[in-house]
Each structure stands twice: as structure tokens, then as C-alpha cells.
């Protein structure tokens, strides 16, 4: 498609994956910090639940990372084939999210979840072929 080197394409894919993972982890961390929506709605109503999200800086940092990931994806798509960039970034994001959830969010990522992440990762790759 272009004369872009494989190294630079994989560098762009790495940036997409890193930013998407950071966005997911920051948003998940923000939601965990805010707490169960059902309980907040019971005490403070729907407006209170929305206010809890919209006053959380971590949430906006997560949205910012996801937006940057999206624009990096658009940039990468203008340089490399969609058949490589889209599945590779989507599949790798599942694996990096599992690692980030385990080490940063301290989630109990057991064998069942590792297996699910691997299945989805390989499945996305096959689906995009």
C-alpha cells in the first residue's frame, strides 16, 4: 500500500494498543472508584450517578487516551493496510488489557479469564482474515 517500513507500522500498532489499554484501565479504575451505579442511583438518583462520572478526572483522562488511540488508528490506517492494523490492534489490546487488569487494577485474572482473553484474541484475528 505504501513504502512504510514494517517497524514503523508495528510502532503505530503498539501506540494504538498502549493508548487503548491506558484508556480502558483508567475508565475501569474510575468506575471502580465511583462504585456501584445501582447503589448510587438509589441514594442520589440518576443525576447523582451522572455527576459522579462527570466530576471524575480519571474518567476524562481515560476518555482522552481512547480518543488519542482512535486518532492514532486513523493515522495508521492512512499509512498501512486495514487488514493488518485493525485486527492486530484489537487482538493485542485484549492481551495487554488482561495484563494491565491483573497488575494495575489488581483483578483476579484466573486461568478462565486468561483462556477467554486468548480465545477472543485469536478469534478476532481469524475473523479479520
Amino acid at each position, binding site marked *: 500500500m505504501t513504502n512504510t517500513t514494517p517497524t514503523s507500522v508495528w510502532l503505530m500498532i503498539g501506540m494504538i494498543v498502549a493508548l487503548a489499554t491506558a484508556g480502558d484501565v483508567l475508565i475501569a*479504575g474510575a468506575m471502580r472508584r465511583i462504585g456501584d*451505579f445501582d447503589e448510587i442511583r438509589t441514594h442520589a438518583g440518576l443525576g447523582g450517578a451522572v455527576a459522579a462520572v462527570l*466530576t471524575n478526572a480519571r474518567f476524562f483522562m481515560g476518555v482522552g487516551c481512547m480518543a488519542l488511540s482512535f486518532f492514532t488508528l486513523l493515522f495508521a490506517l492512512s499509512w498501512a493496510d486495514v487488514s493488518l492494523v485493525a485486527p492486530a490492534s484489537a487482538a493485542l489490546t485484549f492481551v495487554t488489557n488482561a495484563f494491565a487488569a491483573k497488575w494495575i487494577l489488581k483483578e483476579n485474572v484466573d486461568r478462565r479469564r486468561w483462556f477467554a482473553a486468548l480465545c477472543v484474541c485469536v*478469534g478476532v484475528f481469524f475473523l479479520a482474515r
Partner: protein
Amino acid sequence: MQSTMTFRRYMVLVAVMLGASFGDTFLSKGMKQVGPVSIHHLSTLIVVLKAPWILAGIVLLIGFFASYLTALSWADLTFVLPATSFGYVIIPLLSHFWLHEYISPARWAGIFLITLGVGFVTQGPSYTSHAHPIPTDDAAALTSSSENARERSA
């Protein structure tokens, strides 16, 4: 880990699965009706917001994001993320059974693997309980302020 899943919470996960895939499909259909947008006429992107398919797509994607945030408030990221990937399965299945498009064996294998992964993770616990929970300052502040307001009004 504890299982806190109820029927309503499974419905929220279904909304996560369907919202993203149908939202993207509606946006795609709307943009195909509009045609290619030139970089010199970016104002067209504002005009297309009035198109019914685009509007419906945006509403569905807002619904998806609200459901995604709700799910993350009571479930782990590694529990919710496989559910979001189920959209990759819904679209090819719709295209096969509704639009009678051909699906290659590799894609059937992909559909099988994603379904297996999603089915596998949803059978397990949804939330990790920590011995020392992350402080929920925001929720506590909101709860106490609403209780104070109720006490004042009483």
C-alpha cells in the same frame, strides 16, 4: 471473587454487545448514503448529523457507552471486555443469515473462538473483592450529600 450477576446485569451486558455493533452498522449505512466526505468540505460532517441513520447510530453508541460504564461499576474489566468483543460475532452472523453473505471457514473459526471465550468468562465470577477496597470517595461524598439534603428537607 464473588458472583453478583442478576438478570438485569446480564441485560446490561447484552446492551453492551448490541449497542456497539448496531451503532457502528447504522453509522456505516448512514455514511454510505452520504458518500465520501472531502477534506475541503468538513462542514458536511455537521450536516450529516441530521441523517436518520447517523442519528440512530449516535444514540445507540451513547447507549453502548452508558451500558459499558454501568457494567464496569460492578464488574471487572476482564469480565466486561470479552462481552464487548461479541459484536465481532453479531455482524458476520447477521450478514450470513439475513443478507446471505458467504463466511469463510477461518471466519467461522473466529466466531467459534470468540463465542467460546465470552461463554467461558461469563460462567465465572464477575467482580474481584479486595481485602483492602479502593476508596470510593466520590460515591461516599455523593451519598452523604444526598442524605444531608434529605435530612434538611425533613
